[in-house]
């Protein structure tokens, strides 16, 4: 009985060593111990045989792994495009100091007047109210249709909940598609825009503008889930008209009504 228990313990200890023997990782004493044990133990001998097979197969896997078709140059290109190349001796601290100096200089030299729209941080342009391009007057604008160019009045995110407009000229955008997510658009009250129009709460999908490229992060998520930071209280949403957005629009699981209208305000 005692001998059997002792044998089982020895087998367990050998089982840990047996896998290192074919790899040549066992020193003299351990190697000798394994060899003498497997000579008398059928189970451990089988274990060793499989360990030897496994070691050979592992070596074969290394040989069979096909060579990579893509190399360092590709990674280097991606890194270069993301971060311009640095000198090898240049440290992060050096960059931080340079950046801080540049920012200080920019703030000191920046004109105190009205900033140009292009210089405004994109984060502030998240919410946008659309207004169609009009020649003159305050007539009821036509329904916005896909392909139409629209102007936009950007509302600042002042944080106090106000919806003031800058009333500035912004680059026109092309409407890729208009619509409303069924059951998704919030039932927001009608409100006036700076152009005295009342806008129903629709969902508007607009083609990409480089200036607004960061305004919407995930078009597909946006269309499907309408995250709160990307949809205004009017239900107006900006979607960059990139390929992913187009894919999201073609997603049959997304229900989009293609009706959208502007109404003249009082």
């Amino acid at each position: 009985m005692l001998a059997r228990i002792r044998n089982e313990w020895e087998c367990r200890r050998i089982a840990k060593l047996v896998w290192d023997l074919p790899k040549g990782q066992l020193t003299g004493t351990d190697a000798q111990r394994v060899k003498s044990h497997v000579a008398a133990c059928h189970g451990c001998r089988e274990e060793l045989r499989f360990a030897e097979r496994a070691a050979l197969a592992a070596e074969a896997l290394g040989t069979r792994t096909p060579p990579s078709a893509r190399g360092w140059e590709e990674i280097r290109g991606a890194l270069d495009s993301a971060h311009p190349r640095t000198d090898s001796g240049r440290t992060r601290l050096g960059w931080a100091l340079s950046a801080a100096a540049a920012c200080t200089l920019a703030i000191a030299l920046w004109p105190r007047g009205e900033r140009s729209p292009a210089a405004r941080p994109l984060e502030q342009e998240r919410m946008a109210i659309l207004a169609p391009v009009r020649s003159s007057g305050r007539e009821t604008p036509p329904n916005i249709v896909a392909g139409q160019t629209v102007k936009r009045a950007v509302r600042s995110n002042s944080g106090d909940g106000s919806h003031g407009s800058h009333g500035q000229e912004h680059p026109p955008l092309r409407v890729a598609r208009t619509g409303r997510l069924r059951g998704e658009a919030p039932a927001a009250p009608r409100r006036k825009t700076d152009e005295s129009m009342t806008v129903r709460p629709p969902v508007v999908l607009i083609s990409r503008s480089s200036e607004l490229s960061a305004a919407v992060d995930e078009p597909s998520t946006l269309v499907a889930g309408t995250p709160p930071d990307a949809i205004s209280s009017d239900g107006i949403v900006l979607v960059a008209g990139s390929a992913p957005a187009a894919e999201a629009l073609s997603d049959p699981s997304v229900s989009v009504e293609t009706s959208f209208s502007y109404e003249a305000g009082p």
Partner: protein
Amino acid sequence: MGDRRKDGVNAVARKMSSLGVHEDRLEARCRAGDLEAFEEVYTRWERPILRYAYGMLNCADDADDVKQETFLKAFRCIHSFDSRCAIHTWLFRICANLCKDRLKQRGRRPQVSLEQVSSAAIPPGPDTDPLRRILADAEHDLVLRALQDLPTGHRELLLLREVQGMSYDEIKDVFGCSLASVKLRLFRARQQWRRRYHQLNGEGEA
């Protein structure tokens, strides 16, 4: 005789020490954004990472993608590299996570593809006897097929230990678990690998 042996040991110690210093410097240079240091890391670890990804995914294209993604991700997030572990264990950790993501995307366990693990792709080895070579290839196919059939957790452990030759400590760093856990899981993985091999070989459980 004794002196000569002592000299040899000292030489090895010096070599190991210089390698360690070199690794430290390399990591520091990587952290500083030195692309040449990145390239050195890439050259050193590209093939092992590719081999690991190929073993996990069993698809050359996917493995290549994951390998590139691993290095890109590593270099972009080098600031988050914890210098308590070696850079290669960190690379393997990233690669292991990417492989798991890729397998999840597939939505199924990787299918064994003997075409992909084809013995025809093996360049002629030193064994010139065609019959012996065919038999050996068939044997390797079976062992690797058994490996592919294992659950992801077991497969990644076995690939690191048996194919990459990593130490228990290194594996512990890759998976962020205890040494005892690594040993236990490895023990079970080996048992399961062997059982699966015998099943495939029509021997039942040995």
